[in-house]
């Protein structure tokens, strides 16, 4: 079908020419209009290819820089616990043809364990809180208040991590170390799992504080996704439950929760991905150690992401460049863990047909 604007003056005498527009100008604009979709299609196509290309380049750059370090460090990198840059001014050693300073020895076990520990603590704290808050927001809350609180949660998701880190190290950490941790440490029974919470409480820099702050940062992700899930549960089964005389708790536990269970698992894994990759806040709060697995919940430790950001400055001193290559290897480990976690989440979400919010997006 031909548009009215496309009727070229001269070829169809029946169409009146618009006032104030020369025929040439009109021909020009109508040609552009007819061809415009080429621009959207080609421009859009080129732009849509950017993310996959960027992803491929990121993986390529990391792999190229990490490969020599993988050859030298070997499996020891995943099982060892020492982190020595070696003597930067000493003689250069060659292993498998790769130059590295005398006495350098890298093992990231402490960092891997620290990353997993802090993220586990964060999930254990964040999950029940998020689900509870999502329940409170969807059930029996005046709509205006619920909306306002929902925006507050979105804003928390958008607060920069360096600000949360600053607050965590200056306000929250000392407060917990002075008033909360001693109470926990003195009253926890001496049984296998809980024994972890006994011992000197330190000054607020450490594993438990990092876990709590990480929990704070992933709560918005899990809570807002869970809230959306709860809002999608059809009202009829819930009303049926109420009509049978079930209390709110029973409706929640036996109807709402089973309805959205797999979606919540997906949301949790998304939050876990964010916690594993969080850098700046943890670097400020964890104490940033490289070769220590903390013996109790309060001790300083380190995570992979925090180690990369705090060590890169020092790694540049290494004239052979081996320290930087090792940091690239460390990043590869983190990215692999995250890819596994995220594809797991996507698998769960796809199976349940629920589209999760992108990680960290406040809306």
């Amino acid at each position: 079908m031909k548009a009215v604007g496309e009727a070229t003056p001269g070829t169809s005498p029946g169409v009146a020419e618009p006032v104030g527009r020369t025929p040439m100008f009109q021909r020009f604009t109508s040609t552009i209009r007819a061809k415009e979709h080429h621009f959207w299609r080609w421009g859009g196509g080129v732009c849509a290819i950017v993310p996959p290309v960027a992803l491929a380049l990121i993986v390529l750059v990391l792999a190229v820089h990490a490969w020599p370090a993988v050859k030298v460090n070997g499996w020891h990198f995943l099982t060892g616990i020492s982190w020595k840059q070696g003597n930067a001014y000493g003689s250069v050693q060659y292993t498998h043809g790769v130059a590295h300073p005398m006495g350098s020895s890298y093992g990231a076990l402490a960092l891997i364990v620290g990353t997993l520990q802090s993220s586990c603590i964060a999930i254990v704290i964040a999950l029940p809180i998020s689900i509870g808050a999502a329940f409170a927001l969807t059930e029996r809350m005046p709509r205006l208040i619920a909306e306002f609180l929902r925006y507050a949660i979105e804003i928390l998701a958008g607060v920069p991590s360096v600000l949360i880190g600053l607050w965590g190290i200056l306000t929250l950490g000392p407060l917990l170390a002075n008033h909360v941790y001693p109470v926990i440490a003195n009253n926890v029974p001496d049984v296998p799992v809980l024994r972890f919470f006994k011992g000197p409480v330190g000054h607020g820099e450490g594993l438990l504080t990092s876990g709590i702050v990480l929990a704070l940062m992933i709560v918005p992700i899990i809570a807002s996704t869970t809230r959306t899930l709860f809002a999608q549960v059809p009202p009829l089964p819930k009303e049926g439950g109420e009509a049978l005389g079930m209390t709110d708790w029973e409706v929640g536990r036996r109807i709402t929760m089973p309805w959205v269970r797999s979606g919540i698992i997906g949301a949790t894994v998304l939050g876990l991905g964010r916690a594993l990759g969080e850098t700046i806040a943890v670097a400020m709060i964890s104490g940033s150690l490289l070769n220590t697995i903390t013996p109790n919940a309060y001790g300083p430790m380190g995570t992979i992401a925090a180690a990369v950001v705090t060590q890169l400055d020092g790694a540049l001193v290494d004239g052979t460049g081996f320290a930087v290559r090792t940091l690239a290897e460390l990043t590869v480990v983190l990215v692999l863990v995250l890819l596994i976690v995220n594809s797991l989440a996507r698998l769960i979400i796809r199976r349940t047909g629920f589209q999760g919010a992108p990680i960290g997006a406040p809306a």
Partner: protein
Amino acid sequence: MASTAFPSNRRRRVADWAFRIATLLALVAVIGPVIWVIVGIIARAVPHWQWSVLTTNTIGASGGLKNAILGTLVLLVGVLVIAGTIGTLGGIYLAELAGTRRNGKPRGGFLRSATEVLAGIPSIALGLVGYLALVVGFHWGFSLMAALIVLSVMVIPYIARGTETAIRQVPTTYRESAEALGMSTGYSLRKVVIRSALPGIVTSLLIALAISGGETAPLLYTAGWYTGTPKAQLFHQPIGYLTYPVWTFWDYPSDQAHYLAYDAALILLFLVLALLVVARIIVNRSQRYSEGRRR
């Protein structure tokens, strides 16, 4: 009724009240820290606030933050240009132009999953890659361009996703009406579809700006740090930004450095909150008049 299997009414009532109180406590545990963080940062910064912070450059670890504020604004404008263009066009393509497969599913699944995977790459990995490839590999040095590319790669997935969602929410009848009026495909896309989806697109852009304005890890080793007023130079010239003073100066020994860190935190907080609040207002206003989308 089998009374052995059924808990007593008293126990059920107690459990119900415990549940309600627990959910409210959980809500407090979520909302409380938001207010605490905001109030805490304001309380630290305000007692020592001086307006000269806005007009003087950083000198060592004291002075003002003019360079950092201007640097952050330059970065935001750059991200808006680069990531905004690529992200929105990519999102438009995925939503509208990729077409459908023969089995009725939307095409572009590979592009979409790659975009999602990119969103899951931690920012420190992007920073390290930017340092290795752009700063060292291309010999750009700490530079505005390296920082812009890294930040853009980080937020493009959010913008593309937000744009795609916004365009998919435009009712099909709009497109059909446009076609019935004889509009060409591209013209109706620009004048009808994108115009209706504009609030959603603008919102995703604002959120992307809020994210990139608050980032530290990818900038430390790509933008570097510069205490002078930003220069109009893309390469070989480091640039200041607001997150650097917070990250670096908070544990310096001098009080001046601490105050500077708190001031930077306060300015950053207001910048990010303003972006997020404006984004929220746009969403609310556009939803008020849109059909069939309540919640």
